[in-house]
């Protein structure tokens, strides 16, 4: 779908990772009377999708994806500020991180960036994350989903710890869905840990997250 030329300045700034420029362009659009929801649906969403597709084709790289997502966050804050009554559409809220003992971060960062490009609000906790910190953050931001990454057999038990903490808590059990991924993760790991789902790669991760969100 072609994006209306009136959004071209905003789109260029998202593509270039220029947050200030993106915010200025969004303000300009609001001042000329454009509906904030149209800005989200007709400019931001298709633009992020295009960047995600280019990443899949390796025409742009991880930093461009991460920066584009940052610009969008800044723009959405402006939209929210101006129209607090309007809930800016988000596909869902995800807390993601690499579990304790593990410092592999590239795959997790790719998944985080691709989820953002697909309209999810992502809170990336980094690497070597203590099991309790996942829960703390998920409660704080009222997440829908917790994503756990691990590339090492020696850290997979920490995935199980996070999952157990959620399943054992009456408050959290029905609130947070849990999805896992990383090199050694498979269907078997899902059984072993009690996760709600898993993803083999970034595209898979989006499908799995979507399916879990839909399942309520």
């Amino acid at each position, binding site marked *: 779908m072609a994006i209306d030329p009136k959004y071209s300045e905003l789109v260029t700034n998202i593509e270039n990772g220029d947050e200030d420029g993106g915010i200025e362009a969004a303000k300009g659009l609001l001042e000329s009377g454009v509906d904030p929801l149209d800005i989200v649906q007709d400019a931001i969403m298709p633009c992020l999708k295009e960047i995600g597709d280019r990443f899949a084709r390796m025409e742009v*790289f991880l930093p*461009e994806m991460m920066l584009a997502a940052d610009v969008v966050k800044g723009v959405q804050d402006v939209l929210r500020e101006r129209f607090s009554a309007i809930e800016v559409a988000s596909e869902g809220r995800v807390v993601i991180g690499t579990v304790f003992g593990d410092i592999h971060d590239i795959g997790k960062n790719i998944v985080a960036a691709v989820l953002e490009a697909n309209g999810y609000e992502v809170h990336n906790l980094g690497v070597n994350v203590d099991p309790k910190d996942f829960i703390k953050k998920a409660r704080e931001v009222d997440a829908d989903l917790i994503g756990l990454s691990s590339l090492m*057999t020696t850290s997979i038990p920490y995935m199980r710890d996070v999952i157990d903490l959620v399943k054992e808590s009456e408050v959290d059990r029905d609130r947070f869905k849990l999805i896992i991924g990383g090199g050694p993760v498979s269907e078997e790991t899902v059984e072993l840990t009690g996760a709600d789902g898993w993803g083999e790669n970034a595209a898979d991760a989006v499908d799995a997250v979507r399916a879990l969100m839909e399942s309520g």
Partner: protein
Amino acid sequence: MENKPDILEILTRTQTGEYCTQKEWDTKRIPGTIRNILKEHDLAGACDPDNPVNTDMELADKFYAAGYQAALELGFHCTDTERIISVTQGELDLAVEAAPSELLVGEGQHATLLKSRTPSDPYPMKTACTLGIAVSEEYWPAMHYLIAREPEVDLLNGGSLITIRGKEVLSSTPIETFMGYEHAQMHKEARRKAGRPGMGAIVSISAVTEYGMLSSYGAKGGYSTKDLALVLFPSEMKIDYRTLHKVVQVHNVGGAMKADSPAMIGGMPGPPEGAVISSIACALLQYTILQPQTGGGEVYDVRTLSNVNREALWAQSLSMQALGRNTHLMTHPCMNQVSGPGTEKLLWEIAASVAVGAVAGGTLSTGPRSAGGKLTDHITPLECRFMSEISHAASGMALEDVNEFVKAALPHYEDTIKEPDLGLPFQKAYNLDTLEPIPEWQAIYHKVKDECIDLGVPLNPW
């Protein structure tokens, strides 16, 4: 006083260096600096996937100059304090000059001499097998005895243990500390039983954090300081306290260190050319900041989860050539295959990728990474033998000849890099009674080896 930068002073920069968030480092500093340098040195678009082994030495030197500039502009990012450890040109030059160009690993008649190499250097690139693939405790001893027994394998690295005495090895717990020490005993026993007690070891692949290593390296009854301590740190150019504990321990006990961090094509440095610059910069910086004896120069491709594809082979050839021609550092091309044991494709992936590292000037290669290193027990001694044979045989070849060889090897596996056949685990690819490869696997090895000989790799016929 040794004539090299004071490591203690450099370590204090993790607290005093310029503040920079990790996000800023990952998404702005690294990509921005590399993008500008690519432009300034006119290197964007240099990658030639039709010729996976670069033969233009002027291009290699241009990349070296670009990587050198990137090292001085960037430094390492300490992820614990979010501060940048920058180094001066004087420090970098001094440290690179002070790095050794030779190192004896192990002891006695089975020790291995590592040497700094240039492209097509006749001195062979040495090998350390395997690459931390998870191995069950049950099979670990037999598998490693068999690998140590392979005469062409130079150093014993090894599989990562998932349990110790039946208990899950959980990262950062006392079980890891326990495992670190006990793993050293198992490792020594494998080498002793194979008749190579002085064979050098890489320490300690199972140690996911500093605990597993501090408990075994230089400890009484643990690994010897004649073994090579492994220090891996996060790309791109990031370092953390966990890793620095290992570094300081190696210096404290007067041991030898191999440090590595792969530059990621498709990650923060972007295209293959950006990853070459990042890889050279990272190597120069690690010799200044961590001061290992060996390591550096790896390139990995996040798009193929390997480095056996054309762009990654090209990038790997360039980073080795650039460092080999312009420094006497002892570099480490770590080649990551994707197919599994028992498949012909695995051997072709090994042949192409290891030949590239060897001819381009790598000093030591660790591998193989059968089945991408993803599956427990998916590694056998036979591919360790093949990797080492290729490494030794391809070392003195002409760059042009290896380029032709790789072009002939690629069609054997290129179409399935993204969906590889993961093959068989050790216990199925080997007969555990005779400790020999099953006949099918043996036959595949003979077939691919013969074809490699026909294609000009001077392997000893079997």
